[in-house]
């Protein structure tokens, strides 16, 4: 609980206000308010279809929001505010802001036509215009962090799912993100490979990375998260320290969800 007390004084990194997202006629996200502070690890739990992955994708503007605002480090991600209007940013400006937010996907989404090292070097060189040499050095450091230094020359298809996901994490880290988004990072993995990915994520959390993790790994949420947020039907049902939300949920919907997954 000391960690939680420390967080209360940390600066706000992500702030969502009244976020709505519609797919066709369906409101998938219906009014989410959320605050994530620098260094905080937040786990988003909830049944499938509850809008948690969609909300996560709204944070780096992979999905456009229909109402509300999301700001990261004080800047609106996809928009510029002028008076009471939000103007969508141009492609280059959106890309610039997105480069500070790392994202890890359920399906890894490594670039299959590039080696592991090329995957890691691509964005620093193309987006940040870093020299190939310094990008390669940093890429090797990051591969060391996830324990895959010897796989630098391999193509993604020759790696196991767990190794691919660790490479994907390293790839996001080469951009020195302020925030890491994880969209069900272990859901596509064989059970015996889940642990190695969670270990890497735990290490990141220990190093003070701000993380928002959509996950079904309740154990991970209990151990690593500072805040657990439970979503259902496109809204936040409840949010708080893991001890409280997971052991003593206030809402019936949270209770029945936890009863099913635990």
């Amino acid at each position, binding site marked *: 609980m000391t960690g939680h007390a420390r967080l209360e004084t940390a600066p706000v990194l992500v702030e969502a206000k009244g976020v709505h997202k519609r797919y066709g006629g369906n409101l998938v996200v219906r009014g989410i308010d959320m605050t994530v502070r620098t260094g905080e690890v937040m786990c988003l739990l909830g049944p499938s279809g509850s809008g948690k992955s969609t909300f996560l*994708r709204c944070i*780096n503007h*992979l999905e456009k929001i229909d109402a509300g605002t999301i700001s990261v480090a004080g800047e609106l991600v996809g928009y510029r505010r002028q008076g009471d209007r939000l103007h969508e940013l141009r*492609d*280059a400006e959106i*890309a*610039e802001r*997105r*480069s*500070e*937010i*790392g*994202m890890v*996907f359920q*399906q890894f*989404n*490594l*670039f*299959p*036509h*590039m080696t592991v090292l090329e995957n890691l070097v*691509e*964005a620093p060189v*193309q*987006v*940040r215009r870093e020299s190939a040499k310094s990008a390669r050095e940093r890429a090797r450091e990051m591969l060391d962090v996830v324990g895959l230094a010897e796989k630098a020359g391999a*193509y*993604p*298809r*020759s790696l196991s799912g767990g190794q691919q996901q660790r490479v*994907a994490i390293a*790839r*996001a880290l080469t*951009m020195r993100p302020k925030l890491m*988004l994880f969209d069900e990072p272990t859901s596509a993995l064989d059970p015996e490979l889940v642990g190695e990915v969670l270990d890497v994520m735990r290490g990141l959390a220990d190093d003070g990375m701000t993380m928002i993790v959509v996950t079904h790994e309740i154990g991970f949420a209990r151990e690593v998260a500072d805040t657990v947020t439970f979503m259902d039907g496109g809204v936040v049902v409840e949010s708080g320290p893991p001890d409280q939300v997971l052991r003593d949920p206030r809402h019936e919907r949270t209770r029945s969800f936890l009863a099913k997954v635990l």
Partner: protein
Amino acid sequence: MSGTTGSDGDAVRVVPVRRYGQRLATTVVLVVVALIVISLVTNPRYQWSLVFSYVFNAQILEGLATTLYLTVIAMVVGVVIGVVMALARESSNPVVSVAASGYIAFFRGTPLLVQLIFWFNLAALYPVMSLGIPFGPTLFSESTNVLITPFLAAVLGLGLNEGAYMSEIVRAGLQSVDSGQTDAAHALGMRKSQTFRRIVLPQAMRVIIPPTGNETISMLKTTSLVSVIAIPELLWQAQAIYSRTYQVIPLLITVSLWYLLVTTVLSIGQYYLERHFTRGDTGRPERSLLGTVARGIVPRHSSVTVSSPSAVTPGERSRS
């Protein structure tokens, strides 16, 4: 079961099934091949010495150069139009996407020969072409017969037609790339243009290259159609010679030998190109060079659905 292991004296002999159908087929094929070879050698009307004497004939070589030149230009025009039309069809702007669909429907739905003759006779429809501001002043004007030379008519006919086929091939290629790739590139801060150029297109190429190779090989042969609008390409030159000498068959054989040689060379090039664009795959059986060459010679299939699976082995498709 020790009796069945070979080294024992009392080993049981294995008798394979006798496949009489296969034996029959083998016999028939061998007989037919033998008959063809005997006929090729003994029928004096083939006039082989004449065939070979024309292979390096100046007029024939000139025609070959025109054929190659026309193939390259028509394919370049076709690929450029194909990429543009593929992107236009995927456009979120309905006016643009419907226009692209209309283009493709028109050029795929009418015979190429008709299109070629149409372009050749464009002057009958528009005697004068002018450049100006719509509903405003004219800046430049010229007779259509001067502007649309037979060669330009040929390039227009072949290129515009090819563009319609290429757009379907390019579109199939772009659609074969998982949307997660775009997500990942965008999430890393790459712009749309960077994502297309560095991430999507290289992966789409493995689906685009094999049918494009087929299209190129097919285009080489299709250029012979422009002989009807008096372009002096390979077939036209042969016709020009045999209309004088009446050596029709030997000259058609000479021409066929050249077409066969060039398609073989193109097939070999296609093999190496495909190998380059499938890097990153593991467990993919390498297709033999011989198989690729043979595939280039058999008749073309222009539709994407027929030719694109060759780029992706079944194992890979199940993964995507």
